[in-house]
């Protein structure tokens, strides 16, 4: 394996700036890695080799001409397929958008291009970001590089698996109920959901507009911060975009120090419902932070137990209206019934053929929750729970600087294990959903491997809205302390994927 692909984005950026390596070389190394292992991992739905190399060559030319470039210029990046990309297919993991090439870039994509990053391609995801395992992708699941028979998390399993398997140093994700943080947890990577409105949603194919947020997917906390600094900021194209100026997240990581930091442990999310090894690594991380000056306090968030119920009313309600745009007229698939039909019949046939089972399930659920006579009982009540969850956060943050929870209840489960049980699948997001309901930011940082199965475990930190820098402070500090204990990054323990690929080829699976 080339050393170039093992570098963090920050280190690669420095070597590019120093002229020790070119962006074309770095990009080619990652493209080679994708060729070698993506048959087994299936993190990518589309790889744009030609344009990536052309973009890299352009960055190299600009650097040679003495142009002032940002810290990530020339560094490759993978982009979740939920973000529209000019000139690259954008499907959101759905058959209904197969082959659609958008005429414009989403704002976060435009910003990474302007910062000189090199988009490699689009990553796999649950269809329209509905899921926790990528098994709901219309194009087949992504495999967890730690164990190819297990889920990489979801919906952003492709982005997380791409950085975990060294196919890309950075990726963009989207998080509606945990789709950045839960994949980070099960793949030993870092994922951040910024404050709602910190990153523009313009050009992000909407799932639930009041919950969706774009954020970084990386191997180190500093890399997440550097990418966060590129994509955050006000965008007039998104009316929910926060107009405030943001402090540097990268500075927060570089100055990371937990002395005097008050960390609240949410007691409702530290229970028997979580796998023993997940809780063990969670508590060890907290003890490590405590030994280094943090103060650990137990807090209660009594309404978090209602968060999943509220989420599975609000999300389907918003999704059912957002997905009405797939009407077989302006983009995507059109299926005409035998013998023709009216526009309504064509629309119904198209949506029947173009949407997968989970999307249909949630559209019907959302249509039901919004119907006359049920609106107040379901959607209205869910919005009230949202208020109660926000009040729990407000009360907790009156006493502590950040909250800590395990990111998800278990390590990566087997592909297929929960596919036929939607309610069991929904429970994966029990610890991540409250942040989306309240709009507060969250980070998942690797906390080690669970002793019982050797699979990665993440710890989640949550901060008040607009205080994203606190996550980078505590996350950066914990990462440094754990690295000193382990002596090597967690992903150094990743199995050799090239062997898997060879085996798969021999068995005729690839």
């Amino acid at each position, binding site marked *: 394996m080339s050393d170039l692909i093992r570098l963090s984005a920050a280190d690669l950026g420095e070597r590019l700036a120093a002229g020790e390596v070119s962006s074309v070389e770095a990009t080619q190394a990652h493209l080679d890695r994708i060729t070698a292992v993506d048959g087994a991992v299936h993190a990518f739905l589309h790889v744009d080799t030609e344009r990536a190399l052309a973009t890299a060559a352009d960055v190299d030319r600009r650097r040679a001409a003495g142009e002032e470039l940002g810290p990530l210029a020339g560094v490759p990046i993978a982009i979740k397929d939920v973000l529209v990309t000019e000139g690259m297919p954008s499907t959101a993991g759905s058959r209904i958008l197969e082959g659609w090439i958008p005429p414009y870039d989403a704002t976060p994509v435009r910003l990474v291009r302007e910062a000189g990053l090199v988009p490699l391609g689009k990553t796999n995801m649950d269809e329209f970001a509905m899921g926790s395992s990528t098994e709901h992708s219309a194009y087949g699941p992504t495999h967890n590089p730690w164990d190819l028979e297990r889920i990489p998390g979801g919906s952003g399993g492709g982005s997380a698996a791409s950085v975990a398997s060294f196919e890309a140093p950075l990726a963009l994700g989207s998080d509606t109920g945990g789709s950045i943080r839960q994949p980070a947890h099960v793949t030993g990577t870092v994922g951040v959901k910024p404050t709602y409105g910190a990153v523009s949603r313009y050009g992000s194919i909407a799932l639930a507009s009041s919950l969706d947020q774009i954020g970084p997917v990386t191997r180190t906390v500093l890399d997440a911060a550097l990418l966060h600094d590129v994509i955050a900021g006000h965008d007039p194209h998104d009316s929910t975009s926060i107009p405030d100026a943001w402090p540097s997240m990268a500075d927060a990581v570089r100055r990371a120090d937990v002395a005097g930091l008050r960390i609240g442990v949410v007691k409702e999310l530290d229970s028997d419902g979580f796998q023993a090894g997940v809780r063990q690594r969670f508590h060890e991380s907290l003890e490590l932070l405590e030994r280094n000056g943090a103060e650990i306090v137990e807090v209660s968030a009594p309404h978090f137990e209602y968060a999943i*119920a509220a989420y599975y009313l609000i999300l389907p309600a918003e999704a059912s209206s957002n997905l009405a745009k797939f009407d077989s*007229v302006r983009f995507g698939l059109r299926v005409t019934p035998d013998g023709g039909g009216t526009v309504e019949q064509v629309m119904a046939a198209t*949506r029947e053929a173009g949407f997968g089972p989970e999307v249909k399930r949630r559209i019907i*659920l959302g249509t039901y929750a919004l119907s006359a006579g049920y609106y107040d*009982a*379901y959607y209205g009540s869910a919005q009230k729970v949202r208020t109660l969850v*926000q009040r729990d956060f407000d009360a907790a943050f009156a006493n502590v600087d950040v909250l800590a929870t395990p990111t998800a209840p278990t390590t990566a489960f087997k592909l297929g294990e929960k596919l036929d049980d939607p309610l069991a699948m929904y429970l994966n997001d029990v610890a991540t959903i409250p942040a989306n309901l309240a709009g*507060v930011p969250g980070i998942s940082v690797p906390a080690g491997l669970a002793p019982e199965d050797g699979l990665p475990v993440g710890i989640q930190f949550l901060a008040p809205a607009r205080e994203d820098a606190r996550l980078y402070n505590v996350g950066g500090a914990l990462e440094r302390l754990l690295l000193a204990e382990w002596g090597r990054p967690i992903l150094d323990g990743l199995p050799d994927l090239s062997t898997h690929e060879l085996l798969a080829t021999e068995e005729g699976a690839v």
Partner: protein
Amino acid sequence: MSEINAEQVAHLANLARIALTEEEIEHLTAELGQIMQAVEKVSEVATPDVPPTSHPIPMHNVFRDDVVGDNVLTVDQALAGAPESDGSRFVVSAILGEEQ
């Protein structure tokens, strides 16, 4: 609250413009019943004194000047992904059926 039956699911599918098969309707009727039973939990704490929240970060009306922006698609760009167009417009299927 109410039980969900197959007739209701068929009606919802019609409202949502998805031509579900009989088999899908049957399957979804069972699943939706279970899911609704789980999410009805919200009614335990959603008392009249609690105000609803629709948006996580409070914001007031966001206005901009009514001028043409910098990101307007050309006709060709707008039609590029359409299943059917006549070169300057989207082509849709018949609006009315024979019985109408």
